[in-house]
Every structure is written in C-alpha cells, then in structure tokens.
C-alpha cells in the first residue's frame, strides 16, 4: 500500500514536472492522416491523433477530448459546425490527388486510363473518407467510374491506401501528392490532369467543448501564419488561397 502511494506521488511529480517544462498543457489536435508528417514538423509540442477526417469527426461527436480539428475537406468540419460542436472552419491549405503504383509497377500502369484493364488490384479509401470522395470525383471527371469494379479494398484512411501500394500488394491507389512524397522510392507517381482535379481544401476549427479554447484559437492562428504555411508548402501542400 505504501509503495503504491509512493508510486502515485512520483507519477504526479513527474507529470507536474513535464507540464511545467513545456510551460503549458499540450493541445490535443485531431488531424487528417495526410497531415501525419507535416503537423509534428510545424509544432512538435502538441498531442496529435491522426486518422480519417470522418473517423475523427465521429469521435468528436461522441465527445472525444479534442481541442483542434483539422480535416482534409471542408464538408466534414462544416457539418460539425452546423451541429454547434466546432467553430466556423477556415481553409488552411490545399492539396492535389495523384495515382500511385508500386516502384516495381507489377501491373504496368502508366496512366489513369490503364486502370480500365480487368484484373488490376486498385485500392481506394472508403467514400466517407475525404480522399475516397475526391477519388470518386476524379473518376467521374474522367468518365472512368467503371474502374471501380477493379477495387479490391476500401481503406479507412489515405495512409492505409499508401501502405498497401508501397508494399506492392495493390497495383495502384489514389492518394494526395503529399502522401506520395513521403514514400519516395517505394511508389511511382502518375499525375492526374488539372482539369480532372477535385477542389481539395483542408479546414481547421476549434472544438467548442475544449477546455483550452483560447490556446486552441491561437494555435489555429499560428497554422495560418507565415512560418506554418511555409512548412506546409515545403511538404508539398498547395497555398491556401489560389493564386
């Protein structure tokens, strides 16, 4: 019993110590999985939870303790805003879709139109995931929805699509151009023409139930600031306002 009390006391001291060292409590930032690499580069202090934006939104609706929510589209945070759960989302960056194939390119795919060949193992994200919805838009824009019959798996987020292609198990998959950059050498990128690109806007907002709203608001402001924006551009994201 005494040892347990001692342990608890030590644990409490350590907890206080780390919080003091940071000078403040770290924020909990729920962010789209395509932001997995860049957000810790922008700010390594906070606690991040990366997943499909739709999954994160469902968790926030169930009362998850998020302070900030960064989604890979505007539709999902706007829905939460309409429900009164978050502040009005603002666009903080943009992105583009690409088709990726494994470096060895086992199915010899060289253009999006090659996906029409039967027997190709195409992996996409579920349509409820932002990148899954964008994928459908690309295929509609290119009149290629028939290739959906080659889909062998609908993944929970963009990183799962990336992993299955990088591993070589899937012949091709649609991801953001920024994801493809994180797997350089393992995947080959096939560009999607500009006319077929969907409007990929990332929205950020503060969760209203947050206990650190002012701090969260300041974090969002910093994300829109020059330094954070430069890091996003360096990671391959597009400027938040179209020029």
């Amino acid at each position, binding site marked *: 019993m005494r040892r347990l009390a001692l342990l608890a006391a030590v644990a409490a001291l350590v907890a206080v110590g780390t919080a003091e060292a940071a000078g403040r409590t770290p924020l909990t930032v729920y962010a789209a999985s395509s932001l997995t690499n860049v957000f810790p580069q922008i700010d390594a202090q906070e606690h991040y939870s990366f997943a499909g934006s*739709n999954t994160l939104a*469902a968790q926030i609706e169930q009362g998850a303790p998020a302070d900030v929510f960064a989604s890979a589209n505007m539709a999902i945070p706007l829905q939460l805003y309409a429900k009164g759960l978050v502040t009005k989302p603002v666009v903080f960056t943009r992105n583009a879709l690409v088709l990726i194939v494994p470096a060895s390119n086992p199915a010899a795919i060289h253009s999006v139109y090659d996906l029409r060949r039967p027997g190709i*193992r195409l992996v996409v994200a579920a349509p409820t995931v932002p990148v899954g919805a964008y994928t459908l838009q690309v295929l509609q824009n290119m009149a290629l929805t028939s290739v959906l019959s080659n889909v*062998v798996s609908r*993944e929970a987020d963009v990183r799962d699509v990336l992993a299955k292609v990088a591993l*070589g*198990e899937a012949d091709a998959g649609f991801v953001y151009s920024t994801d493809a950059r994180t797997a350089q050498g393992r995947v080959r990128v096939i560009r999607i023409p500009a006319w077929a690109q969907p409007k990929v806007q990332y929205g950020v907002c503060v969760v209203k139930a947050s206990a650190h709203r002012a701090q969260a608001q300041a974090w969002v402001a910093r994300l829109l600031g020059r330094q954070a924006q430069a890091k996003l551009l360096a990671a391959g994201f597009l400027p938040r306002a179209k020029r």
Partner: protein
Amino acid sequence: MSRGVFAAALVVATLAALGFLVLPVVAIFTHVSPLTLASQLTNPVVDDALRVSAITSLEAQALVLLVGTPAAYLLARRRFRGRALLVALVELPLVLPPAVAGIGLLVAFGRFGLLGTGLPFTQLAVTVAVAFVSGPLYLRSAIAAFEAVDERLLDAARTLGAGPARRFLRVALPLAGGGLAAGEALALARGLGEFGATIMFAGSLQKVTQTLPLAIYAEFDVNFDVTLAISALLVLISAAILLSLKLASAWTLSLRRSGFRFAPSTST
C-alpha cells in the same frame, strides 16, 4: 483488518468488477431502442458482413479441425526432443498482437512475401487470417484433451487388436471430445472477432472481405446505429457460444461422474 471489513472489501471488489465488465455490454443494448437495432439488421451492410463472416469462419474452422486435431494428437501422445518448443511455437500466435499477425501474414503470403502468393484482398485471405489467430486456441485445448486421455485405455485397445488409426478414431477422439469441442468453441469465438490481421492482410470490401468486426469499423462514422446493431449481434453470438461451452462442459462432467463409456482418469 477485521474479518467484517475484509468480507465487505471482497463484496465491493466483486461488485466493481461485475459492474465494470457488464456495463459496456448492457450499454450496447440500451443506447438505442431494440426496435432500431432490429431494423438495422436488414441493412445490406450487415447482411453482407454476416455472410462473409459465416463463410470464412466455416472454412477456417474446418481447416483448424481437420489439420489441428491430428496435429494435436501427435503433439500430445509422442514424447520427443524439442516437443515443448514445438508446442510453444504453435501457441505463439495466441499471444501475438493481431496487427503483428497481419504483418506476418503479409510478408509470408503477400505478393512479395516469402511464399509470394496473390492471397491478399481475396476472401481466402480472411479465412487464412481467421485460421491463423484462432487455430492455436483450438490446438492448445486439443493437446490438453488428448493428454488427459488415459494411456491404459489406448494400450488396452491395442492389445485387443486395434490399429493406430482405429485407436485414434474410436478411443482417443470420443474420450477427448469434450475438450476438443470446448477448444473449438473458443476458436470460433476468437475467429469471429478477428479484426487486426484481417484488415491488414485482406483489406476491407463489402461482400468480399468485410466481416462483421470490419463492418463495425467501416460504419462507425457512417451510421452509428448499424455499428450498434452489429455489435449487439456479435454479443448474442458470443453469448450463445459461451453458453453452449458451459452446457457442453457440464454435460461431459456428468458423463464422467456417471461412469458412462470409458471414464478417463481424473488425474490430469
């Protein structure tokens, strides 16, 4: 500590454990009305997932029984160098995190894996994943069940002229039956709940590889009522498996007490 305080502490701990363990299961059924739950069961997502789960479980458990039973018999009856190591290896997947199992299956049976098969994303991949994680559970019980069979009965069968196959089929198998059934029930339950290895190795596609647990995950942010309905369904199936397990063990126990058939020695 006085006796009364200790007794009270035991009761409090028991109540706390009970409440903690039962509450989430009860919550699944009380979150929405039973009518809503039942109406979601006709949802095609549930229907397709149920079919995929049933087919793959059937295939996987057939595989587990057909290969696992003779393997367990050999491991239980023969004494040889390295047997303990072999048994431990067979049991290893049991304690592996499912995600590790998924990665292992990918690098073993994936396109660029050790064996280089085209298994991933097929329904057979689900079967393989389920067999991989549930098989050891059966093997473990089956080895113990065969070990508990009285050696003297097998010897007696041999002196009466029964060959090894006959001794296995007519003596060992019926005597170990209760233990085998219990092991298989546990394996079935574990296999039905398989998630991590399946989603990594087989992916998730409705009608093909999306099992009930995968459907829960996929529908979580789409239609929460559907996830609740599938969860409720899985609770009922699991409860049914557990109940049959309890009934079966009570039945074999009563068989032993009544001295029916060849009563196996109780000194296991």
